[in-house]
């Protein structure tokens, strides 16, 4: 059963990758977009002007200084229609969100380029992957790749080791050491690893 399910999951990834023909990821905000294709579900290229906002502030009126200083999720209040777009991801293929890349633009008008993502079966509103950002009127785009640099500055000892940040992060490693990779305890983890690597 698990092999069938796994194959189905892999097939879905492959299908989503093959599904996007030229122009198939165009949407109402795609004009002029340079966004890179990530072969994601419901993907649409989207370039638009917006104001960077603290989502909690925007929906609930709880508004600390500087959009929460990186602790809060940030969004993009789209200029053309006033829609609050949740910025879910930055451009790095490294399990990293968009908040640290948007924070320098807190409450500023910007232009962003990226991908709107998600299928209506699962979400009435698409999430946004911000790939490029610039202040309104600026010529140069910036890639949204700050997250790993900030992590390395905050974790200088861990950053010295080889490998990606998520293999070296002290907090993640402490939780895995305590609960295992499956989160079910070390005993179940060991049994599963035997199945995975030895059987």
């Amino acid at each position: 059963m698990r092999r069938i399910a796994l194959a189905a999951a892999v097939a879905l990834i492959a299908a989503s990758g093959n599904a996007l023909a030229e122009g198939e990821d165009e949407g109402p905000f795609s004009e002029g977009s340079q966004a890179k294709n990530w072969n994601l579900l419901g993907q649409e290229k989207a370039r638009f002007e917006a104001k960077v906002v603290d989502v909690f502030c925007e929906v609930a009126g709880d508004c600390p200084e500087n959009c929460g200083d990186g602790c809060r999720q940030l969004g993009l209040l789209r200029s053309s229609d006033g829609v609050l777009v949740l910025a879910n991801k930055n451009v790095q293929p490294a399990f990293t969100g968009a908040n640290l890349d948007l924070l320098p633009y807190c409450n500023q008008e910007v232009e962003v380029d990226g991908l709107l993502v998600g299928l209506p079966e699962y979400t009435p509103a698409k999430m946004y992957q911000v790939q490029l950002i610039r202040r309104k009127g600026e010529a140069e785009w910036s890639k949204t790749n700050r997250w790993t640099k900030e992590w390395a500055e905050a974790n200088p000892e861990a950053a010295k080791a080889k490998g990606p940040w998520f293999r070296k992060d002290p907090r993640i490693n402490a939780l895995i050491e305590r609960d295992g990779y499956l989160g079910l305890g070390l005993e179940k983890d060991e049994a599963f690893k035997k199945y995975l690597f030895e059987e």
Partner: protein
Amino acid sequence: MRALITGLMLAVLALPAGALAATQGERVKIKGEIIDTWCYFSGVMGGPDSVVGSAHHTCALWCAAGGIPVGVLAEDGTVYMVLKYEGDDHVTGGDTILEVQSDLISADGLLYQRDGINYLVVEKVTANDGLVNLSHEDYDVIPPFAIPKPKQ
């Protein structure tokens, strides 16, 4: 009187934009699994059922620590984006939100709906059943490299 009205207008203009657009939250009781919303909605790792629970627990830790929005996936399939968790608004990789990844929780909270997205302030977790979705039994681990191969 004119000075008072002018003063009020200036006070309103001085408010953050969010304070003007904000709404009252709706009191709700939610039961659901804490999930990584990027993998769930984007399909980057596979179908939604494969990117929840034990199969995806390590990746959920990575994504939560990486600041990707954390959600609560309710039994009816609705996803609620968490904006605050039991008084802690550090939801972009904070210790509290990292600790509860993949757990099944019941919570009292405030719901805010905006432009098709459900935003949730988790006020009080009334029960935490831990990790009960044994998705690794069907999917092994997603992504497959989540558990590093032991060195020979």
